[in-house]
């Protein structure tokens, strides 16, 4: 049986911060913003105790920059923010993607656009997490639906970032970030942690962007004599800029496919009462639990409905979702946005008519009752 710690009351943001520390994060660079600030505050209090560093930078751009600088020294590094700050970080997130610097960015989503509703729950940054920076680029994003998942997925996120050398985004939402609930964390010694691969070659032979079949280059810590060069320009295996079209293409294709390559390992999801389901919810993050409650209610009324929870949102698990959608009568997608995940499902579902969004954007969490009544409205039409 899984070894667990004693039950305790934890907030989602706190759980995320605790997980980060336990997974080895030793640098946090950030800028306060509701509803993510508790993460920074926890880090400010705990990092120095562990010999780690916290810095409140002058803005989110600086926070992201500092995180990347720290990561290059071999330190696991993280930042946390919300919508407006997430927008500001995008340029440097792209730099991380391009230069393959492991890092984790927590976005505790609040209502947008713009300043919107700083303390209102929403899930409006799903597409931005994928496409917020310019140019084609790899990205991983996970989204927890409980305080425990906030812990678990943060550990995973850090592992993914280290293993794939890529920025990983944790899409919390205000609901989960600010919620406190009973959790029994896994015992620390049961955590599986991953560290980026350090060079297996001596400095003279080190080619920072050369890869074997793993597709992931080895990474030297700054200050250990490898004297390598990091640039956001198109670069070759040596890390230096290049204008050679074939080299550019090769590097970029590796960059873009490396995440796909590990998609199976990265793709995390859960199902709920799905075995006999004729109808399906597909959802993620803060809308999962009201939807689960809706499953309960609807099942009591005799409707065979189940739920598919995306924990990994990006890369979008097209094949799995397609598989689960295949024989369902209707697929309902509850989201606290106007249908961002629904758009992705639309790409893979065999019959678009079967796809129904349940959307709410008024600054309050969607309720089981709202979900149920929408389902009934549609199901009765069928």
């Amino acid at each position: 049986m899984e070894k667990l710690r004693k039950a305790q009351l934890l907030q989602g943001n706190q759980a995320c911060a605790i997980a980060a520390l336990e997974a080895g994060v030793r640098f946090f660079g950030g800028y306060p913003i509701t509803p993510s600030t508790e993460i920074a505050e926890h880090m400010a209090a705990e990092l120095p105790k562990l010999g780690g560093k916290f810095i409140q930078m002058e803005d989110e751009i600086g926070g992201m920059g500092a995180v990347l600088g720290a990561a290059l020294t071999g330190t696991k590094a993280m930042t946390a923010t919300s919508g407006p700050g997430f927008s500001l970080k995008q340029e440097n997130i792209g730099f991380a993607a391009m230069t393959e610097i492991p890092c984790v960015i927590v976005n505790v989503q609040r209502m947008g656009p713009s300043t919107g509703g700083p303390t209102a729950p929403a899930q409006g940054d799903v597409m931005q997490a994928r496409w917020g920076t310019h140019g084609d680029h790899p990205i991983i994003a996970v989204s927890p639906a409980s305080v425990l998942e906030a812990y678990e997925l943060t550990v995973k996120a850090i592992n993914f970032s280290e293993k794939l050398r890529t920025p990983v985004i944790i899409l919390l939402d205000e609901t989960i970030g600010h919620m406190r609930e009973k959790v029994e964390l896994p015992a620390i010694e049961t955590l599986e942690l991953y560290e980026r691969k350090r060079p297996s070659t001596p400095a003279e032979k080190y080619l920072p962007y050369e890869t074997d079949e793993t597709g992931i280059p080895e990474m030297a810590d700054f200050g250990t004599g490898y004297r390598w060069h990091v640039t956001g320009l198109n670069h070759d295996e040596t890390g230096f800029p290049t204008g050679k079209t074939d080299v550019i293409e090769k590097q970029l294709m590796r960059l873009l496919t490396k995440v796909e390559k590990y998609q199976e390992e990265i793709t995390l999801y859960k199902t709920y009462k799905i075995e006999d389901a004729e109808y399906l919810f597909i959802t993620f993050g803060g809308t999962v639990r009201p939807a689960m409650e809706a499953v309960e209610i609807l099942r009591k009324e005799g409707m065979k409905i189940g739920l598919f929870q995306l924990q990994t949102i990006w890369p979008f698990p097209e094949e799995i979702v397609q598989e689960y959608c295949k024989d369902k009568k209707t697929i309902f997608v509850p989201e606290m946005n106007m249908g961002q995940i629904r758009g992705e499902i639309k790409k893979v579902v065999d019959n678009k008519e079967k796809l129904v969004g349940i959307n709410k954007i008024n600054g309050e969490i969607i309720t089981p009752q709202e979900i149920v009544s929408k389902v009934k409205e549609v199901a009765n039409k069928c």
Partner: protein
Amino acid sequence: MLKDIEKLLRQDKMPHIWCPGCGNGIVMKAMLEAINSTGIDTKKTVVVSGIGCSSRATGYMNFDTLHTTHGRALAFATGVKLAKPELNVFVVTGDGDGSAIGGNHLIHAARRNIDINVVMFNNNIYGMTGGQYSPLTPHGKFATTAPYGNFDRAFNICDLVKGAGATFIGRGTVFHTKVLTEMIKGAIENKGFSFVEAVSICPISYGRRNKMGTAPQMMEWLKENSVPVKAASKLPPEKVAGKILVGELYKEEAPEFTQKYDELIARFQKGAE
């Protein structure tokens, strides 16, 4: 001397991409000279730059080097230094990179007195993008985006970083290479935030449009328009007005940021024992 610093140069990347007569190579050389002469551990030295002609210097310097996004070198460098305070951290930045888009990181790094040595390659222009005015383009000068003469006022960038809290400030030029090297040495020796303005020449994107002649002519201009700061105090004001003051402009003792942080950590570690 060139032969002493060749090992600090990535010879295989040379010749560099800078235009004929561009001052960037001279500033970079002064940096390498200073680094070499202070004898700091070059394996434990990191140079961080932003984007611009000048910021390409990191590609030629044989350390761990980091060519970041435009204006953000100091933010990245702050992360490097704080995460691993035993590293010697330099920032190479342009007048645009460091004082326009990167101005905020500059003043805040100065405020924190974090031990980073900033060398600003000031060619008074955005060189890389072909000659737009920068916050250090003098009033009245021409640029592609100032076709009628610049009517922005320029920063006195050394005054600005002083107001922000820098603890070592010096200025040299690509003509006054010895002073420049000395200033960078001073920066290295200062345990805190150090700023060196390296007044440079950009014959292509600045000089040409402002009819300043060839590279040697621009050198000549620098020579004639600069005054050592020590001499300046003894000269009549009219001899100093409008001149570039070279030399050490400011120095102060103050607690350094990463050191303070390490003291906090040490406090906890003691507590734990």
